[in-house]
Every structure is written in C-alpha cells, then in structure tokens.
C-alpha cells in the first residue's frame, strides 16, 4: 500500500460567519499567510521523512478553502525540497487553463523533480467555472480535448498544430519535454461512475475523494475497471487512489475530538460560501450533463455535512483513532476497495498544525509499519463482470 500526503492549505482562521462566494479578501492577512505557507510547505516536506510515498498539491480559487490557486508553484518548491516522494498534482483544473501551458509546466516539474511527477488533469468543482469565467456546460468536453492535446504536446517529437473544438494551436513544440517517457502518469478524479469511466478512457489513475460509503466507492471503482477493460487495458491497484480525512492520536477519543472540530469548521465555515455558487452552477447549467448528476453531487455534499465522525468511522470513510484503530481501518479500506494508494488529508479545516505533526509521527512510527506491505502480493483487481448476466 502506498500513501499520498494531501494538503488543501486552508486559511484556518476565517471568522465563523456566513459569507457569500467569492469571499471578500479584506480580512486576508498576507503576513500571516507567509507563515502559513511556510508551515504548510514544511509539513509537506516532512511527510517524505515520515514515510509517505507522495505529496499532493491541488488548485482552488477565490476562497479561504484553499490557498493554492496555482498548485504548480507549490509543486516546484516540493520538487526541489524533496528527493524521494512523488509529487502528485490534484490540479491543474485543465478546462480553465491553457492546455499548452499545463503541458509545459508539468514537463518542467517532471524534469525538476527527476521524473517524480504524477500529473492531475482535473475538471475542478463547479464554482471554479465562475471564477475563471468559463461555461460549466463545456467542462467535460474541454477536459477531454485538453487531456488529448496535453498528451500530444508531451509525446510529439516534431512541431504540430491542433484544430479542436475548444483549442486551436498552429505550431506547438514544448521545451522541456517530460523526463518520464512516454509521459508522466496521469491522474483524473472519479467522484461518480461517469467520471471514473472517463478516467479509464484516458488510461489515467483514478482519484476518489468524499465517498459516502465504501460500497459507493467500490461501485465507482468497478465502473472504472469495466471501462478500462472495454478500451483494452487492465488497471492494477496502483492505478486507484482513494482519499480520506485522517487523524491519529493516542486514543480513539482524542483523535475523534480533534477531527470532529476540524470537520465542523471545514463544513460550516470554509465550504459554506462556495455552496451557494455551486448551487447556481449545478441548477442553472448542464455541468454534469447527465440526469441526476447535479442532484447526486449536492446530496453527497449534504450527506457529508450532516454525518458525524461516528457515522464516518462506522462506514469506513475516515481514518480516525488510535494507531491500532487506524491500522484496522486501512486494512478494511484495502480489503473492500482494493486500492493501491490511500490519499490522507490531515489538515482538515482548523485542525491545529501541531496535531497534524503528531498524527504524522504516529502514522510513521505505529501505522505505516503495519500496513506498508498490504497488497504486496499482486492479485487481479477483480474477475471480469459478465455484463450480460441480468443487466
């Protein structure tokens, strides 16, 4: 089993009141932010020392929810301050950006890091489309076209042009090209079966977060595996990364208390402003394009906001407790989902940074040694499903 250390870089002292989105930045304190960035980057670098296999960056806009509006900047710092871990990008929000720029910057990061980059080609969450003034209805078609164009920019040895629906370039030849050949591993999000199938069609790693239950996660993974087989490739556990809020302390109760506080702050303060904007996008556009897609997304958020930590522990959707408990939870996740990567997110909302460090050290000393070899014996992901049988 491999572990990714994910960090949202939240602004963890936003006042507890309801703000509309986009959130006014009058109360943003740049001096404090300098310290915050330093702390967060140091934490990510420390994750390498603590045994994590990858450190993850992400991209969000116009909100105290996350301070990484360009994850490639943080990625560049991590590329030079770490030496072993992979640099996993849960951005770039490709439909919002110039895909050639994405290809170039990722190639730079891959070269800078000595070939340690995992390239996220993400669609983003709905309200980001307001931020960058792009039609949410086009998000999927932009993502798919941009992903093909980026791969072409990485792999084409001679100059080429591109005449697409959304992108037109008459002469492309990027410098540098990526260090990993033919190109770095691509990661795409799959928060529902449709997006998981899309990731499979791009031969990308599947990234899952916010699953409401392990059974729901399994359904998404099955959709991914089935689609991959349909288009001619076989996923391995290392192609699947599942994300969980994580908090480890001496006792289950201590961990629960810490995580509960952080999640409450995350849900009621940091995520509240963007809900209004998300609702606008989801109800006034065809962001999901499929019937029930918007409803499912909103329900998922609603459920996530109302569930207690006890609910989440029971359902296996957080890693929270003593080291012994965390080991059991990770083993359950592995057994039920078959994923080869777990994406841990320890800085939830306003969880204190010293609690985060304590969690990391307990993970290093007591959890990792017990779960490192999970899945070391490679087995088939799953027997092929006979789609004809009763479907």
């Amino acid at each position, binding site marked *: 089993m491999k572990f990714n250390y994910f960090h949202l870089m939240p602004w963890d002292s936003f006042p507890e009141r309801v703000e509309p989105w986009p959130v006014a930045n009058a109360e943003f304190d740049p001096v404090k932010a300098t310290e915050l960035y330093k702390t967060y980057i140091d934490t990510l670098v420390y994750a390498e020392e603590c045994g994590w296999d990858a450190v993850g960056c992400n991209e969000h806009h116009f909100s105290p929810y996350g301070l990484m509006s360009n994850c490639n900047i943080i990625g560049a710092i991590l590329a030079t301050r770490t030496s072993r871990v992979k640099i996993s990008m849960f951005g770039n929000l490709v439909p919002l950006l110039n895909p050639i720029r994405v290809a170039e910057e990722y190639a730079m990061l891959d070269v800078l890091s000595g070939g340690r980059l995992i390239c996220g080609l993400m669609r983003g969450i709905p309200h980001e489309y307001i931020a960058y003034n792009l039609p949410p209805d086009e998000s999927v078609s932009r993502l798919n*076209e941009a992903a093909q164009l980026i791969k072409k920019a990485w792999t084409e040895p*001679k100059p080429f*042009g*591109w*005449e*697409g629906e959304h992108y037109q370039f*008459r002469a492309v030849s990027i410098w540098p090209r990526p260090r990993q050949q033919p190109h770095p591993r691509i990661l795409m999000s799959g928060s529902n079966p449709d997006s998981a199938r899309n990731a499979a069609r791009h031969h990308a790693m599947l990234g899952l977060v916010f699953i409401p239950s392990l059974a729901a996660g399994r359904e998404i993974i099955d959709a991914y595996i089935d689609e991959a087989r349909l288009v001619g490739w076989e996923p391995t556990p290392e192609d699947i990364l599942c994300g969980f809020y994580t908090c480890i302390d001496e006792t289950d109760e201590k961990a629960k208390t810490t995580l509960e506080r952080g999640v409450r702050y995350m849900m009621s303060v940091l995520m509240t402003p963007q809900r209004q904007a998300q609702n606008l996008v989801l109800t006034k556009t065809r962001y999901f394009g499929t019937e029930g897609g918007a409803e499912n997304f909103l329900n998922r958020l609603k459920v996530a906001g109302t569930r207690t930590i006890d609910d989440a522990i029971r359902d296996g959707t957080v890693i929270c407790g003593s080291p012994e408990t965390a080991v059991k939870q990770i083993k359950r996740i592995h057994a039920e989902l078959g994923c080869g990567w777990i994406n841990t997110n320890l800085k939830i909302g306003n969880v204190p940074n010293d609690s985060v460090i304590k969690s990391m050290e307990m993970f290093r000393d007591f959890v990792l040694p017990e779960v490192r070899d999970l899945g070391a014996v490679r087995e088939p992901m799953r027997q092929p499903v006979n789609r004809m049988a009763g479907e």
Partner: protein
Amino acid sequence: MAAVKKPIFKSQIAKLKQGELTFWVGGKKGVDADGKEHLPVVYLHGAGGLYKSATHELLAADRRIYMPIIPGHDGTDYVPDVDSMQKLAGLIADFVRKKLGGKCDLWGHSFGGWLASWVAALHPDVIDLLVLENPAGYRVEGKGGIPAETRELFRQMFKHPEKRIPDDRTREMVKANAGKTRHYHRGTPLDADLVARLGDISAPTLVAYGTDEEMIPLEGMRILCDGLQRHFLIYMYDSKHCIHVDQPERFSRLMRDFFDRGEAFIVTSAAAE
C-alpha cells in the same frame, strides 16, 4: 456561423491530350485583401470516389473548387495508358494547365492525398499550396488500410456520420470504387518511390490528420513530414478518416486561413476566428 449559400457544383468534361477527364466545378471567385483573385482549389478525392461535403460547400463560398473524378471511379472509364501514379499525376497537372491557367492550390484526401503528393513532386509549377488530408501511400509495416468489411469501412471513415450530406451512391458503389485505385498504385501500402521524392515538393504543405484516424497510421505521417521541405502537421480533433465530413467548419476555416495567408497562417488573426 452565418448560413452559407450552397454553391451548385456542375459536372463537366475536360478534353486533355491523354483523354477525357470528368470533373465537378462550383463556387464563387473570391479576392484577397489586395483585390487579387484567389487561386482555384483542386480537390482530389479518396478511393471511395467523389463525395461532396459541407467542407467543399463552405470553401466554395469564396473559391472556385474543381473536383476531377479519378478515371475509373464513379462510373467513369480509365484513360488509356494512364496506369500509374506518376502518369495520373501528369493528367491532373495537364488539367490544371489547360483548364485553370496553370496554377492552383491543391487539396487531396486519402488516395487523393497520395496523388496530390505525386503532382506536387513531379509538377511543382502547377501548385502554390498543398493540403494533404489523411493521405494514403505512407502505410508502414502493413498498418491501417481499407477494411474489407463494408460496415467496418464506414465505421473507420466517419466519426460523425450524421454530418454526411446525403448522396445517391450506395455503400456498395463506394466500396467498388476503392478497388479501382489499384490500377494506379498496384496495392503498394508504402510508396517508396514517392518517399524518395518528397524532398522535391517545394509547396508549403498542410498535413491534416484526424485524432481518431485508423486507416492511415501516424508513423506514415511522420515519414511524410520528415521528407517534406516545409510542412505543418495539424491534428484534427474528433475526426476519423474523412475530416471533411467530420469537421467541416473547422477544416474549411483552417484551409481557408492557409490558402489566404500561406505559412503565415500559424499567426493567429482576428480575421481567422
């Protein structure tokens, strides 16, 4: 996009020294920014015969388009003694000299792209700019090719078959056309003689390749591009073998921009949008 009035393509016959050549012609004579009349565009069709698409119609809004029927196709007879790619190229070059004043922009699709390459290599005087759309003749290691089964053939031809303009030819007629090209190329997948002469092509060449193309392998396009003096390889997103059917708006816009501005088409302009 504003509605484009459909041009009427008319069938005519050119009497050349080798024999008769049937062709279709239509479109308006347009002028460039300096008032100079655009060169006519000659379109050389693929092995399936002449299929007039929305791309032809859009391009014909300000250009005269000439579309010879490759002898043997669409019910025409072979021309005596024209039985090789080189001789067929000579026939097309003579057509340009006799009917079009000696100069054209040349666009060839699939087999027509193969033929257009030969015209450009052997008769550079008749061509200003060259467009090769998924050109045949560069199939390496037996990859690609025309599928034997009709349904599979049509699957590989069109990503968006719904964009086809109905014509009165049956699938079987189209399939029958495909065998006629052997009269000229003898079934050679990779035309080594042409590859050896690619360096003789002096016309700036736009190579359009569908991102979902299956009949013509990408490796072949690399051989082609490596041999050309000055080329622009453009990937046509969401297109299979017949780009002119799958993406008429994009493809006609691209070609118009290339024909209007030559190599400067790589510089974006408001007019090109």
